[in-house]
């Protein structure tokens, strides 16, 4: 009660200060000047520039934050993107170098790394320095699952063309099926920068939704007997093999698809830093400080690029629809390909189709989904280690696919 009295008193003092100012202005004929200043100030506030579509985007941003913080769905991506959506959708008057699309603004400078495509290769460097390719080297045939799951990219490519997008836009939309955020951003920056916001947000949102999208598809295409298949534990991999993998992998994949060099070059370089054993300091920087810094800026700017007047379009809705379809096809492609491989494999060497979904390159979420679904049907059947092989192969596969699309469409 005493507090309220103080507050009312404070308010009256402030009003009391304005009164003499107003009287002075009236006496000196400056009323219009003050009103003009106030009007100008008002016209520059977000309240004056407010439109309903900004509110829609702000609600979406808050939903992203809620999913990231409360549901713990890909918080490292959804929290920066969600907050970026809020930042990008504060209404403002154009011409003051505030917005992300205004040349010279701070947000625009940070966004340049997305537009010119140099953030994704740095993220790939960090991914390479984090990834252990041992399971892949121990059982190389699992790499093919990573290729099969790229089916989602090319079917979406066709689907987007059917919906009236240009071939370049189709390529950029199709790559969402690779379930690889940095690759999607890299390709969109090259082929369809105008769709960057929608593609990046769709790719990252669906990556976060992997635990929701994939299980029904996995269950649909497998039967109980297949879900219980036990796989042999992978053999021990020598240090030589671990060091040789990034070198051979780089030379081979980039000789076939040179356009994928920025992504694959950095991925394999990061892995060599990790496996060489003599550059631990560099590997540590790549896997912690560097990737974290780029993730923060990338997430925030991608989120901010969803400015309502540029983002809320029919095209964005179509991209979201195509993205969902791409993820479903990619998951089904991986699972069905494992079943196809099993036709030729001897009893005892068969692969559990529940690791097929991991062919999409959402590392390590899709491998985690394989583990969880596998445990649901057999509490002692751990599939995580096996699923990591197609999962990292998916990263290579989607980068190769991006390179091919880039070569075809540039």
């Amino acid at each position, binding site marked *: 009660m005493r507090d309220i009295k103080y507050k009312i008193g404070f308010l009256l003092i402030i009003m009391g200060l304005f009164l003499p100012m107003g009287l002075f202005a009236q006496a000196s004929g400056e009323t219009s000047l003050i009103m003009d200043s106030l009007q100008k100030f008002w016209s520059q506030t977000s309240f004056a520039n407010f439109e309903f579509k900004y509110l829609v985007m702000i609600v979406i941003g808050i939903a992203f934050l809620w999913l990231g913080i409360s549901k713990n769905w890909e918080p490292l991506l959804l929290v920066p993107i969600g907050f970026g959506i809020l930042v990008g959708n504060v209404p403002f008057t154009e011409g003051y170098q505030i917005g992300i699309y205004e040349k010279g603004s701070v947000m625009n400078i940070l966004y340049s790394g997305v537009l010119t495509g140099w953030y994704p290769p740095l993220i790939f460097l960090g991914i390479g320095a984090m990834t252990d390719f041992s399971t892949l080297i121990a059982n190389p045939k699992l790499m093919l699952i990573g290729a099969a799951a790229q*089916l989602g990219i090319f*079917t979406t490519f066709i689907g987007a063309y059917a919906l009236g997008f240009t071939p370049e836009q189709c390529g950029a939309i199709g790559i969402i099926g690779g379930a690889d955020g940095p690759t999607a951003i890299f390709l969109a920056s090259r082929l369809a920068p105008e769709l960057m916001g929608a593609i990046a947000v769709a790719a990252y949102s669906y990556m976060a939704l992997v635990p929701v999208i994939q299980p029904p598809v996995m269950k649909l295409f497998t039967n109980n007997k297949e879900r219980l298949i036990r796989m042999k534990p992978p053999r021990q991999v020598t240090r030589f093999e671990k060091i040789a993998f990034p070198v*051979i992998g780089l030379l081979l994949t980039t000789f*076939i698809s040179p356009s994928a060099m920025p992504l694959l070059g950095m991925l394999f370089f990061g892995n060599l830093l990790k496996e060489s054993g003599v550059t631990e300091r560099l590997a540590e920087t790549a896997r912690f400080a560097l990737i974290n810094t780029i993730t923060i800026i990338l997430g925030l700017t991608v989120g901010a690029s969803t400015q309502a007047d540029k983002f809320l379009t029919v095209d964005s809705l179509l991209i979201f629809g195509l993205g969902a379809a791409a993820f479903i096809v990619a998951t089904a492609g991986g699972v069905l390909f494992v079943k196809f491989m099993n036709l030729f494999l001897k009893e005892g060497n068969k692969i559990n189709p529940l690791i097929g979904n991991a062919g999409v390159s959402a590392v390590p979420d899709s491998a985690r989904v394989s583990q969880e679904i596998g445990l649901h049907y057999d509490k002692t059947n751990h599939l995580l280690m096996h699923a990591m092989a197609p999962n990292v192969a998916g990263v290579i596969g989607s980068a190769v696919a991006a390179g091919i699309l880039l*070569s075809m469409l*540039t």
Partner: protein
Amino acid sequence: MELLYIDSWSELLIGSVIGIVVVFIALTILVLLFSLTQYLILNSSKKKLIKAGKKEEEIIDVSANEIAAISMALHLFMSDIHDKESNVITIKRIERRYSPWNSKIYGLNNTLNR
């Protein structure tokens, strides 16, 4: 660099097929190369062991699970050794010299305040 100019449905479909086939080819070659490397490495290490006097039946690949179990057991054993001490409790008497700087007498009031 331009491999294919896409301007019609047929070109688009051909482009898609080429795309997926190239992805498969790239990863298949990697599979073959690493299967070959695996074969060569395992064979050479086998030959080395046979040369050293081991019989072929004795050479078995220890799985990662077994190695992890052995490492864990060793780790537990080593930490257990560390915990086994003399079991003799000793109380060390520490003699402190009197100093007015650490005397508690000066920190207390001698008379009570009523």
